[in-house]
């Protein structure tokens, strides 16, 4: 029975990937742009998933890292004309450094305290951006005139041709999925999941819990920062409004509702939370109300999310052949 279930799963994944890849050929510009947003939020959700899903840290300020990346890109690109895609590593680095500095003193805080501090952090970042901190963020109006990305000399303009941008962001999403899948199954990923389920036991087993938590924060932030580059180059302008506390809530909901700790769950969460409101546009004003109710109902009936991670298995036959490493 088991191989059959696995087979169905594989076929389903292949069909979804195929559908996703050919979708822009059949749907209009508007819907391609919706898919672009889904992809961006999927990457953001995956990056938050490292912190929230694997690490179990209730972090609700992810928009701050996203903002640092997007603003780094926008400032350097508009000031010196450096091509945006080259700025991706710089944006990631800036967000990572920011996370390192900010997360270091708060990493030991318990669940709900961490949550409230990260909310405070993202609000401070937003207020700093509005106040035109260091005179480089453009205040409440933000920054205009960010150039669109170019791949080997080919201009990818998301407004004229969302389909071109679609393949760029899909490529980034694919790389993210593969890397995070490897990370999940690495020594690092296992250690994170362990300390998430029982911190004291993990510490007792010699895991440097504070170090691992901090590393998870930084990795998540680096990825959110790089996604910030994609967002800035997609829109052409950015303003503090795009990085409000609600952005963080949306990312948080994607992970929690989709299935925290599971890549497929987070992808589903992004599709539902970003895609569904577009389908039911008549209900636009009830959108947040419905999400709020969904959060409450899910916590009561299915707190692990729609697609929770499967428990890790160590097949006995592979163990004996030393094919599974610990």
């Amino acid at each position, binding site marked *: 029975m088991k191989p059959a279930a696995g087979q169905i799963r594989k076929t389903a994944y292949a069909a979804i990937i195929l559908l996703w890849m050919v979708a822009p050929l059949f749907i209009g510009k508007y819907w391609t742009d919706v898919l672009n947003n889904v992809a961006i939020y999927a990457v953001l959700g995956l990056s938050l998933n490292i912190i929230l899903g694997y690490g179990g840290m209730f972090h609700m300020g992810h928009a701050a890292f996203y903002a640092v990346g997007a603003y780094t890109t926008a400032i350097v690109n508009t000031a010196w004309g450096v091509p945006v895609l080259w700025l991706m590593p710089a944006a990631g680095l800036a967000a990572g450094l920011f996370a390192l500095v900010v997360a270091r*003193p708060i990493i030991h*805080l318990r669940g709900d305290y961490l949550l*409230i501090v990260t909310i405070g*952090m993202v609000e401070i970042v937003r207020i700093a951006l509005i106040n035109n901190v260091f005179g480089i963020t453009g205040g409440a109006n933000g920054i205009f005139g960010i150039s669109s990305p170019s791949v080997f000399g080919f201009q990818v303009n998301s407004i004229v041709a969302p389909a071109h941008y679609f393949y760029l962001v899909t490529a980034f999403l694919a790389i993210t999925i593969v890397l995070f899948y490897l990370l999940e199954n690495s020594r690092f990923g296992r250690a994170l999941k362990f300390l998430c389920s029982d911190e004291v036991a993990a510490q007792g087993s010699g895991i440097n819990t504070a170090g691992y938590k901090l590393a998870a924060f930084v990795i998540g932030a680096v990825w959110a920062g790089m996604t910030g580059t994609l967002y800035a180059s997609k829109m052409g302008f950015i303003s503090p409004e795009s990085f409000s506390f609600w952005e963080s809530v949306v990312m948080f909901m994607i992970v929690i509702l989709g299935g925290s700790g599971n890549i497929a769950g987070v992808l589903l969460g992004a599709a539902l939370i970003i895609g569904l409101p577009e389908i039911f546009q008549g209900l636009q*004003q009830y959108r947040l*109300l419905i999400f709020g*109710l969904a959060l*409450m109902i899910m*916590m*009561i009936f299915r707190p692990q999310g729609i697609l929770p991670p499967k428990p890790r298995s160590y097949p006995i036959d592979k163990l004996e052949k030393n094919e599974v490493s610990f």
Partner: protein
Amino acid sequence: MEQFFTQLTNGLAVGGIYALIALGYTMVYGVLKLINFAHGDLFTIGAYLGLTLLTSLALTDHIGGIAGILLLAVMAMGLVGIIGILLDRAAYKPLRTSPRLSAVVSALGASIVLSNTVMLVYGPSTRVYPQGLLPSQVFYIFGLPVPVMRFIILGASILLMIGLYVFIQRTKIGTAIRAAAIDQDAARLMGINVDRVIMLVFFIGPALGGAAGVMVGLYYGQITFTMGWTYGLKAFTAAILGGIGNIPGAMVGGLLLGVIEALGAAYISMAWKDAIAFFVLILILIVRPTGLLGERVAEKI
């Protein structure tokens, strides 16, 4: 000197409002160890219900200004308290035995639901409270101006706080609340109906928050459906500042935060006013997570 004094009285008035909201956080946290994220939105509902009662019943015309406002505040408090109990039934009661963080996520969902319900009922734009209900005179102490309004707001919040303190410390029900906060199981063994205590806490806390909502409406004259979030976070900061779970701590923390914020806005930067509370929050959690009046409790393993 005059500016300092003006900011000080302003800070104390706003601080009294923060303290009233903070009491709701701290009481719920004391008994359930839960951050009731939706508490700020209950405060908003209080402000809007106050406005509805004010405009639809026209109490102030029938029985005079101050008496009308008092009656109205009591009605708003009762209604918000009932909503608080309903909120507990819907969002938290099913999660009593679940991991604590499930309840926190549910609280967040409840907060979104409440604030959006207010938006759908009253519309997304700012609403204006009728003016001139509270005396707008200014009297002078040693030549320094004190608007009567600030005095009334601070006085009302201090009266409510003293009332709560006496209730918690001196009555049998108050003793039950304190017992349930210390050890629920032991309290249950002593014959205390802990479910009833939780219900009561979810009535009193939101009722005080509702009173704070009416005060903000009267003091600032305008209310929006999103204000619960900012006030809620600041009041939560106040609760942490004083030591969460500690009732006098919430009062001290509220007044202190109000003054810090007002002085910070005046002497450091007006544009950074909203960030000051968050800096205080982060600082206090890093340096002294138990707050000013909190007791250090070793974490149980």
